[in-house]
């Protein structure tokens, strides 16, 4: 319990620091503070401008501006997005649903396949299968996500025509009429692209961990008792590598979030990743700040879950006897 409280406190302090850091960066950007909040092409009246200046304390020093912004943010008001002409929170909520589906699909996919492939590679170490898996993973790890996306688009969407070229639903259809099947159909290519980003890491990690376990003495003893290789893996291997593998997978939330920015802009998928690009290119400071904080929250959640799981799977950590 004490461990969790400590964790939460640490995360809160980090989150506060992230907001300060992000705000400072935005304040440093070569932009007029007022333009940053209402946009370059804004046609709002002088009175509304005055109101905005007062509301966000834009005439004040950066510290005063930060306090005004932080106060409003804590009340749940992140301001108005310039690019989407909607409250920032609405934009994030709406787009996060799409991104969540995408991230969940690719996260599960890379986790399950990566784990399975890693186990296979370790069991058949030095065989052709192992070499193929290892090489493929190396290539996957080194390939830029956006390039993989472009290739997938070119092969499966343009040349073969199996999948739609982009977006999250057929064009010109009302959101309420889009069926689940259509959504899934649009999701497959981006999700596969994102999985390729993560699968190499988890596979190589699982393989290495399992090899370490298989090299230890209790495995030698199990072999001497006459257990087959799959029996050994099932009884002794999986349990021991499950914790590190799950932890690595949860710790990959940060890469996943970066990955959606790239994958979504390739597939013009209307998620949070394409929103952050649009916000940055359109000089949309409120949205950029909102997404930065949201993404940090997302990463912290991943780390937090990994920590709790750690304790649940391995009681030594929960009791605090291990690693202090």
């Amino acid at each position, binding site marked *: 319990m004490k461990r969790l409280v400590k964790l939460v406190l640490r995360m809160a302090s*980090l989150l506060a620091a992230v907001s300060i850091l992000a705000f400072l960066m935005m304040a440093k950007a070569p932009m007029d503070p007022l333009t940053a909040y209402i946009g370059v092409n804004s046609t709002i009246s002088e009175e509304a401008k005055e109101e905005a200046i007062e509301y966000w304390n834009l005439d004040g020093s950066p510290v005063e501006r930060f306090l005004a912004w932080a106060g409003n943010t804590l009340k749940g008001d992140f301001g108005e997005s310039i690019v989407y002409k909607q409250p920032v929170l609405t934009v994030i909520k709406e787009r996060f649903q799409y991104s969540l589906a995408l991230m969940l699909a690719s996260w599960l996919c890379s986790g399950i396949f990566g784990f399975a492939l890693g186990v296979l590679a370790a069991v058949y170490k030095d065989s052709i299968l192992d070499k193929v898996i290892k090489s493929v993973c190396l290539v996957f790890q080194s390939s*830029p996500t*956006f*390039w993989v996306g472009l290739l997938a688009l*070119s092969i499966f969407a343009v040349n073969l025509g199996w999948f739609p070229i982009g977006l999250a639903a057929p064009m010109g259809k009302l959101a309420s009429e889009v069926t689940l099947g259509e959504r899934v159909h649009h999701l497959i290519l981006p999700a596969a692209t994102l999985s390729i980003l993560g699968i190499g890491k988890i596979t190589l990690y699982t393989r290495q961990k399992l090899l370490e376990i298989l090299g230890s003495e209790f495995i030698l003893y199990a072999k001497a008792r006459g257990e087959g290789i799959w029996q050994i893996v099932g009884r002794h291997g999986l349990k021991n590598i499950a914790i590190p593998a799950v932890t690595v997978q949860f710790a990959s939330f*940060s890469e996943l979030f970066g990955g959606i920015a790239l994958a979504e*802009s390739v597939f013009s998928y209307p998620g949070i990743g394409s929103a952050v690009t649009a916000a940055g290119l359109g000089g949309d400071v409120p949205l*950029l700040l909102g*997404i930065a904080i949201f993404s940090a929250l997302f990463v912290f959640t991943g780390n937090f879950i990994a920590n709790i799981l750690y304790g649940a799977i391995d009681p030594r950590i929960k009791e605090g006897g291990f690693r202090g």
Partner: protein
Amino acid sequence: MDEEKSIFWNRRRQTACSIWAAVAYLAIGLLAGLLISPQWYQVDYHMVFAPPSFIHPFGTDYMGRDMFFRSLKGLSNSIMVGLASTAVSSVIALALGVAAAVKGGVVDRFVNWCVDLCMGIPHLILLLLISFMMGRGAKGVLAAVALTHWPELTRLVRAEVLQICSAQYVQASYRMGKSWLQVAWSHMVPQVLPVYLIGVVLLFPHAIMHEAAVTFLGFGFPAEVPAIGVVLSESMSYIATGKWWMAVFPGLLLLLAVLLLDVAGENLKRLVNPNSGNE
């Protein structure tokens, strides 16, 4: 693998080969970038969208520019950004890592907190934020990539230095009245150098890849500069009409750079790690 072959093609030779391959590739990329004159990829409206051929190995783009030279020039730009930012990030990491481990206490906690902070924001989002702060462009991408690649390496250096902090020769050195900076410089840095340098080698491909990603999203090099990210984001508009060569080859150049460096780094790591030395 049969015995004879494994004696010749052993790990040391593999490592040497992978390092030479990576170095050669980088050198060729850099040199090519310096030697290529913009005339070689100038606009030519007679040759718009030419598929790969003998004259244009990578084809041409929507303005008839030769994709081979443009991509090569872009690769050298990426390598230069990678070199510069790796240099900056690795120096930051060494300084912070050593300071955290040697000084301990508040310094250690502060450095750890900074590392956590930097890793708490998704890397790409942090890159975009910094680039946005610098007003995008070449300056933005350089600052972003240079200032965000130190956290992992800092952790590595800190962990390595912590292991030798209690060594007797280090303690003896303190007793002889050396300051912590002197001890760190003359006893600790040389000790962690191999691991540190491998970390730097493995950092390099990340920096290159992130440069391309930031540029691809429009936060890096402007459109008139040849860069892999620019070329690929241009190709996005034409891929739906079947101009596959505009995306395939430039990406392949980038992939090769990252892959070669990664393999070289991993080989080096295995060679230095005593646990896997006898495999």
